[in-house]
């Protein structure tokens, strides 16, 4: 029925995906959107498949979102918070994974605080690995759900002005979004204090501009993506305490500089009064909760693509 598409080995990052692959995932996610909130419905495309969610770093929304997506598709799932497992007993990452692989899961969804940890494992293990965020490198499913959310509001990504604001240097969300948006021809403005905005970020992909000034970033924007202040990854303060919100916090008056129908996004969890004022977070322009919802449909599309024996497409369905 559906022609079997090229089956990817896993999902490690957005950078190595091509545009057609991303397009296919986003279309399939669109098909899953009506199902994502129907908690009584279970598809059976992944019936009999075992997925292990291995989270070496605390996560609520991403882990829960993956779990729901897996169950909606009929897979069996096991979630492991690795801080509490044998890792704390000194077991190496490779040994932990080998132990899990011996239990024959069909895929591992993994979050890890070290950049490249899933890439390292993918080289040594014969099992699809889905990156649920690696250190300060990439968070591919977040960028996919962000793109899905934008496309729910706009016909296309091409030519859109997207401002990404905050701690870019330490943000895996920013890196994945930059790669994805650039592949689709968006104009990207990255904005943050100098120590969180290394100039080499401008070389990540075509179509990127850097600025240290919030108003400059927001002027004429179609999309504003705010990033969480990642205190746990910052090794030194980027600026005097208290100044961050003053210069890089998004407030309601900023939105007047943007396009009238600008949307405000945030990967969560939000720190009200840090990177985002409460009135912006709760405003009509905020699509933060839509992002959370789309997390499920996008992850369903990703899991199906990697694990299903027959890969559907949005059009065929």
């Amino acid at each position, binding site marked *: 029925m559906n022609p079997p598409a090229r089956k990817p080995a896993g999902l490690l990052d957005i950078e190595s995906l091509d545009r057609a692959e991303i397009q296919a995932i986003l279309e399939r996610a669109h098909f899953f959107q009506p199902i994502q909130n129907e908690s009584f419905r279970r598809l059976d495309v992944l019936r009999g498949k075992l997925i292990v969610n291995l989270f070496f770093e605390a996560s609520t929304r991403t882990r829960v979102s993956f779990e729901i997506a897996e169950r909606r598709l009929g897979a069996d799932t096991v979630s492991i918070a690795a801080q509490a497992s044998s890792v704390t007993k000194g077991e190496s990452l490779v040994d932990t994974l080998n132990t899990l692989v011996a239990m024959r899961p069909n895929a591992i969804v993994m979050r890890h605080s*070290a950049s490249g940890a899933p890439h390292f494992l993918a*080289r040594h293990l014969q099992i699809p690995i889905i990156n649920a965020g690696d250190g300060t490198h990439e968070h591919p499913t977040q960028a996919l759900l962000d793109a899905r959310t934008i496309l729910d509001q706009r016909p296309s990504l091409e030519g859109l002005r997207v401002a990404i604001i905050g701690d870019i240097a330490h943000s895996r969300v920013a890196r994945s979004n930059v790669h994805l948006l650039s592949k689709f021809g968006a104009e990207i403005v990255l904005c943050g204090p100098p120590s969180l905005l290394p100039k*080499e970020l401008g070389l990540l992909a075509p179509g990127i501009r850097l600025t240290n000034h919030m108003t400059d970033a927001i002027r004429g924007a179609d999309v504003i993506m705010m990033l969480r202040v990642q205190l746990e990854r910052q090794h030194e303060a980027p600026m005097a305490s208290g100044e961050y919100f003053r210069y890089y916090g998004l407030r309601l008056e900023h939105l007047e500089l943007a396009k009238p129908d600008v949307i405000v996004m945030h990967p969560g969890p939000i720190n009200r009064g840090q990177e985002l004022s409460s009135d912006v977070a709760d405003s009509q322009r905020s699509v933060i909760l839509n992002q959370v919802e789309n997390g499920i449909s996008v992850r369903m599309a990703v899991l199906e693509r990697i694990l299903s024996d027959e890969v559907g497409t949005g059009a065929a369905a």
Partner: protein
Amino acid sequence: MSSILIRNGRVIDPASGGDAVADVLVRDGHIESVGRGILPEDGLAEYDATGAIVAPGFIDMHVHLREPGIEHAETIETGARAAAAGGFTSICCMPNTKPVNDCATVTSYILQRAREVAAVNVFAIGAITKGSLGEELAAIGSMRDAGIVAISDDGRPVMNARVMRRAMELAAALGIPVIDHCEDLNLSAGGDMHEGRESVRLGLRGIPAASEDVMVARDLLLAELTGAHYHVAHMSTTHSAEMVAFAKARGLKVSCEVTPHHFAITDEEVVTYDSNYKMKPPLRCAHDVDAIIKAIAGGVVDAIATDHAPHAGDEKMQEFERCPFGITGLETAIGLTLSELVHPGHITVGRMVELFTTGPAGILRLDRGTLAPGAPADITIFDTETEWTYDVQQSFSKSRNSPFSGRRFRGGPLATIVRGKIVWKKE
């Protein structure tokens, strides 16, 4: 058997300026004569070096042998065997063992152990400070008496400029060089690779070139202040090379070495998150690699040294940011130098021999690196054309952390002779 006649090779001896096809006669562990048509003798072993280059034994002035204390990664015996297989007849081991080589007892242990088990000559480098902690000077005088040829806190550079000054003053009086691994630990803190486009792309913390540059600048000023012989280990940046050239032009006693990996690979050629590409200083960007090659070609660089840094497999099989720094290098140094410097025409094979012989011997005042009659018969025989592939699984080292496994080389070592004895020969 420590007598041998090496026949018909191209004998390159930078110390005497010789470069011609000749025979080399070794008797009782010493060079007896070099010349054409030396007659064979009954019972005298022979090596036919036709088509090959016969050079003074190569010296690697920067290796880590991990003994005492870290023998699961390397021992003096295995490291020396890897050196022999790489064409080296002498190696100088850095003091970062457990315990640190910061007193005469450890120095004597290493040298005694080397005499018992090492296939090649082993020279020891002592620590600058006790435990290489950067605070209190080590027992430099008694280590000198026990045989060290230089001091260095390699890998844990002395951050306190006052301590470095005192060390340089003492070293100057003792007549030994101070070797510094140049890295400002505050600027490099937490870094895993060269800071630049690739570190930003991969989400890895960067080690800026400036972390090396500021230490080279500091040390050069201290070298001028103290009159010490100062040596920059594994120089890797454009500005370091410029500053060393400037200091030499000012007449300071300054020298420097580079590693093969720093002239052979850029940060963009790193296989993503493969810890076999993780070392300090990190692989730099293309313009630094170009500057280093120019510094070699232009005579600023005095020696090629490998910074052979074995790590056991499980230490390198981790998340990139957790892996220790360093790669092995003894067995690939000649191949890389030929393929990256000689064959592309950056340097002549004669200059290459200098960088491995008179260069390091001069820095460390070793009675090696020459084929003069009476000298110890340490000889490296290599060729520049035979193609071969490096397989790290066949390495003589105890460790396997090389990025060059599977790499094809044109030219490499053929035989290694130490004190007249063939300690390694290509099969």
